[in-house]
């Protein structure tokens, strides 16, 4: 009997010391992640200015208001626009450059190093550097923004505009700068994936008489599918939530022509002090993001079956 109880207590002592290893992580995680996570849902159903002691529970009123908030849906559309741009153009460029680098070419490591410089820079720095390049002003009869100066000197005067203040160009400029900053990520990941493909597969395809186009579709793409899906999901999650470029380049302007969901949440919180409404936006947008990644996962498994 005494043997059993001794065994029992030493067992629990063992469990306890083991649990101490994860305790700091669990504590930090509970306070700074789990609690805010559930509190977001709680606040999303309340009306609160961030200070007042009263936080009336208003059920789904915030979500109902969100449905008719034109600026919010404009922001969601802008996020989709930036994301679509990154998904197609940025990833296509990254993939083609990776294909080119997968061959034995000279200076491969140099290219690889340079392409990853934009991703290591901060969005704040990148945003202000590009803002200066895209500047639309004139002084002493000269365009001082680099792009306009260039367009003027090659005679494309009809293209000159105030890029970041023109509602028709501002958002596209942000999407381009976002892709400029991001393509290096996709490039490195695609290249790593390409280099794991067994070269015997290519030789087998050659023996079977496949041309390079057929080899690409029947060997490269299927073998790369897992990496492609990872890059696509990371692109979606990253581009939909990108907002620091917006803050540094246009600050949502002109008007609301470059506003994105995260800047809306920020403005509702720090600007108009609608904490509940800000949380409702966050919950809605989070649901959109999850739906997107789940759809992509589903498409992946469908494609795999074929």
């Amino acid at each position, binding site marked *: 009997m005494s043997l059993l109880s001794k065994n029992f207590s030493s067992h629990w002592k063992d469990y306890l010391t083991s649990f101490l*290893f994860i305790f700091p992580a*669990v504590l930090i995680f509970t306070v700074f992640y*789990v609690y805010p996570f559930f509190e977001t849902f709680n606040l999303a159903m309340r009306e609160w200015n*961030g200070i007042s002691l009263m936080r009336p529970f208003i059920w789904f009123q915030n979500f109902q208001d969100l449905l008719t908030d034109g600026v919010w849906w404009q922001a969601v559309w802008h996020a989709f626009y930036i994301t679509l741009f990154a998904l197609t153009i940025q990833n296509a460029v990254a993939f083609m450059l990776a294909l080119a680098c997968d061959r034995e070419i000279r200076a491969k490591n140099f290219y690889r190093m340079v392409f990853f410089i934009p991703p290591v820079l901060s*969005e704040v720095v990148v945003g202000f*550097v590009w803002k200066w390049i895209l500047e639309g002003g004139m002084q002493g009869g000269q365009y001082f923004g680099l792009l306009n100066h260039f367009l003027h000197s090659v005679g494309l005067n009809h293209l000159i505009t105030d890029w970041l203040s023109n509602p028709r160009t501002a958002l596209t400029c942000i999407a381009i700068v976002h892709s400029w900053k991001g393509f290096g990520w996709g490039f490195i990941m695609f290249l790593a994936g390409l280099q794991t493909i067994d070269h015997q597969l290519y030789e087998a395809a050659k023996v079977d008489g496949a041309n390079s186009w057929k080899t690409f579709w029947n060997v490269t793409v299927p073998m790369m599918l897992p990496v492609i899906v990872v890059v696509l999901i990371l692109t979606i999650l990253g581009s939909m939530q990108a907002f620091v470029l917006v803050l540094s380049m246009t600050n949502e302007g002109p008007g609301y022509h470059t506003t994105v969901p995260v800047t809306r949440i920020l403005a509702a919180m720090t600007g108009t002090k609608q904490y509940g409404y800000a949380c409702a936006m966050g919950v809605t947008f989070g649901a959109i993001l999850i739906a997107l990644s789940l759809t992509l996962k589903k498409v992946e498994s469908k494609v795999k079956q074929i």
Partner: protein
Amino acid sequence: MNKYVLYRNFKGIGIHTVMILVTLTCLFPLFWMLRSSLMTQETIFTDQSLIPSGLQFGNYVKAWTEGRFGLYLLNSVIYTATVVFGIVIVASWAAYAFSRLEFPGRRFFYTVFILAMMIPLPGSFVPLTVLMTKIGFINSPYPWVRQLGYVLCMINVGLSLSIILLKTFFDQMPPDLEDAARIDGCSKMGIWRHVALPLARPAIAVIVIFNALNVWNEYILAMLLLNDIPGKPTIMPLQRGVMVFANAHNVEYPLLMAGLTIAAVPIIIIYIFMQQHIIKGLAAGAVKG
């Protein structure tokens, strides 16, 4: 034969032309930033040459003193070092326990960390800021309390991914050495410190690099959580400082570009020295999914 060589050379030139064009696209904006930082408020609007005449470094002196960039840099270094150190310790403890130790709830807690990785919640900085105000981190009269709050939040940001990466690494490690240490009477903490941690060095290098980049470039929490106390030295990190500086000098482009250069150069230099590790780590992550 000749035709084939010609074709291959032609193809090679084509590829290199594209690669060089992309390289220029990557580097030119940075060159333009550097160039513009060496001009004056008068010449910048009129002189558009690639390398303007009369380069001068006064903007750097002004940005450094007026923009407090020295302090911002120091703060960023401190935040990055403490957060990364914290993540490595806390995450490697947890990952070691999840991989090697036996206790009730092990699977449950690990699943929670994985779920947290997969569920994005963009607005969670709202209740986080409320919480930090309630606990007293944000408005504390002591700068170090405010800094501690930011550091703890940033440790949390990098925690899940680091735990998952390290656990995968520990899972693949042969347990023989640990068993030997255990038979020799080493405690769990001793095994973690003297066996598991040294063996996990490659995985820890990846975690250090990515979390360091992430903390160095972080903006939103630094904006929400780190407000200066009047009359005391600034506690803002570099990115926040650049934003404040840029909004204060938004038409003084040479000065602004000097500030941006000061902000960009350290990270570029570190990247160039570490690029082999950075790229290898990222590539390993991509292939494993």
